[in-house]
């Protein structure tokens, strides 16, 4: 029968390969980095090229508190993953919910800023080049935070149902890679928009 396959003798012992989840997430992060790079380049390229106001210097305020929230959520998700790997489910859930709260707080900060820009300064995506590039770059990042929060919430619900244990530790680590990436992107966006861009 043709379905019989040739086998090769002497199977090597101790054959170890990287985890496919981590490799795939690393791939996704590389791809996403390229997308963000293009948006960052567009932002920098169009700095000061707007024909009409408002300009970044006039309207932007540095969101230091919300930045601290997002960056510290990287720490809490790391703690959560570590706790899960050690099998401390209770601590995992606590750190996980804290991460969600911090991420949610950051999104609230973005919403508040956008509300202020739109209603107080009349800056929308179609006002000028600054509006176009600002809302796309910060919005793209916000979209990634939102997507991350949806995944974190899914895990939280599963965790509250008692479905997350040490067996899922690998998956949780992959998810936390994504969250660290979102935070790292914010460091770049923050530097570009609020430090260099003003």
């Amino acid at each position, binding site marked *: 029968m043709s379905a019989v*396959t040739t086998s090769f003798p002497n199977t090597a012992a101790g054959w170890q*390969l990287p985890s496919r989840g981590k490799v795939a997430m690393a*791939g*996704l992060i590389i*791809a996403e980095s*390229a997308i963000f790079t293009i948006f960052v380049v567009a932002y920098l390229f169009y700095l000061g090229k707007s024909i009409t106001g408002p300009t970044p210097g006039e309207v932007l305020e540095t969101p230091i508190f919300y930045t601290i929230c997002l960056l510290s959520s990287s720490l809490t998700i790391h703690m959560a993953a570590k706790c899960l790997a050690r099998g401390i489910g209770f601590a995992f859930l606590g750190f996980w919910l804290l991460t969600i709260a911090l991420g949610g707080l950051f999104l609230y900060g973005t919403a508040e800023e956008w509300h202020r820009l739109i209603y107080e300064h009349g800056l929308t*995506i179609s006002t000028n080049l600054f509006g176009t590039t600002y809302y796309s770059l910060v919005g793209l990042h916000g979209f990634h935070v939102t997507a991350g929060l949806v995944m974190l919430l899914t895990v939280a619900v599963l965790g509250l149902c008692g479905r997350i244990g040490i067996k899922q530790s690998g998956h949780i680590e992959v998810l936390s890679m994504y969250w660290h990436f979102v935070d790292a992107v914010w460091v770049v966006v923050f530097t570009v928009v609020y430090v260099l861009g003003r």
Partner: protein
Amino acid sequence: MSSNAITIPGTQIQARPWVDELHQWVTTVDHKRLGILYILSALLFLVIGGVEALVMRIQLMHAQNNFVSPQVFNRMFTMHGTTMIFFVAMPVLFGFANYLVPLMIGARDMAFPRLNAFSFWLSFLGGLLLYFSFVGGSGLYGAGNAPDVGWWSYAPLGARAFSPGHSSDYWTLALLVSGFGSIGTAINIIATVLCLRCPGMKISRMPLLVWLNLVMAGMVLIAVTPLSAAQIMLLIDRYLGGHFFDTQAGGSAVLWMHFFWIFGHPEVYILIIPSFAFMSEIIPVFSRKPIFGYPVMVGATVCIAFVSMSVWAHHMFTIGMNSYANSFFAITTMAVGVPTGIKIFNWIGTMWGGRIQFKTPMLFSIAFLFQFLVAGLTGIIQSSAPVDWQLSLSYFVVAHFHYVIVGGILFALFAAFYYWYPKMTGRMLSERLGKWHFWLFLIGFHLTFDVMHIPGVLGMPRRIYTYEPGRGWDTLNLIISIGAFIQAIAILVFVANLVISYFKGARAGNDPWDAWTLEWSISSPPPAYNFATVPTVASRRPLWDLKHPEDPDSRYE
């Protein structure tokens, strides 16, 4: 495709109803079936894109022809370019990668079978979305239907004012959707290669096809994403009133060019590297020698991948960059010829002193070597900015990149079809029809694309729908069109060969070419589970080791 394309011979009791069978194909997550679906969808779009090319060639056959209107001509070249790159070349190469990579590394399937299916359907439905523009493109405005602003969609042509209706939206969305599919497949290939290799398949023992597809997938991650980003910006411009590429609000048309070509040039290498991969598997087998300089081949490929990321603006010499940028991009473009030359020498080194068998796959491979060399040389000619100022946007450029894509990539693909068709279907393709296909296509190709350089040098611009008589272009264009029809006939012979051999071809057996990589160790077509027991490899040519236990490769590694 007939209903029982991939059934294991001897195991089916009776044929299932065709609806059942179809349902199985549509819902499949098997890498072999998805590979074949990728290839079939690419062949479908190849025929459509080919018909569009023929329409253009009929229109240009003689001066002041009235076969189609200028508007239709614009749609034809836009759709031809977009279709051939995004819905023929990429899917067919992904299809082969899907089919072959897991088999060559001794894996059961891709790392993420469902992501694989998702990526295929994104890519295929992206193609349907593009073609739906012929029906739905005019929208409320009644202006035009299919996209007609060239496959670059240069700003401001892509803006609402110049592309009213929805034709450009279909183009944007089709590319965005299929781009996400490409990213999914690339991630899948990388994870498969890095994480699912069978025991003993060290990274230094992988077949070159696997290596090169790994490099290609890495390039997709970095090069296709800028296009996705640019498409998102274009959508923001068109739908949210953004100003990214709106020069009246301070935006820049040149930025779109940069973003497009940061994708566009590496894309050429994304397509040619898998073609190199086919060559690196086929040439050794038909020369009866192992590949010459394996580590150098890998190194040259990685080198090409890196250098090709920094050459994009050689597409933009004529827009008026400063002399530093011109020099930089001219030098990098010339530099990319070095690793490419190394590869050509390595293939010749593989053939040198071998017992060459001139089967159809090898014929296409040898033609590839010559044609790809010429294509590379005309590329180096144009890398010099002053020469490019003269030749840019002329038929010389069209001839150059068709030499790469048809003379290089398509010939390599034909070689791959003749080489792996027996593995995919269990039947050999007819050598007699194969030789007809090869010689007809070779003659048609050279008639069309060798001659096409000349009107370019004489000043015939690309994308014109007609020309005045008496400029010395008439006879040349007639020859080019005749060549195009000879190629079309050759493609018909090829399709006939695919269909006839599927039913009447000689049985292939496991290993018709006496080859050395793992896919030939299992039945043709392979069973759904690929390998009954996980193979273990000790060298780069595991089947050689198995066939020659007295003198295995592993002794020399």
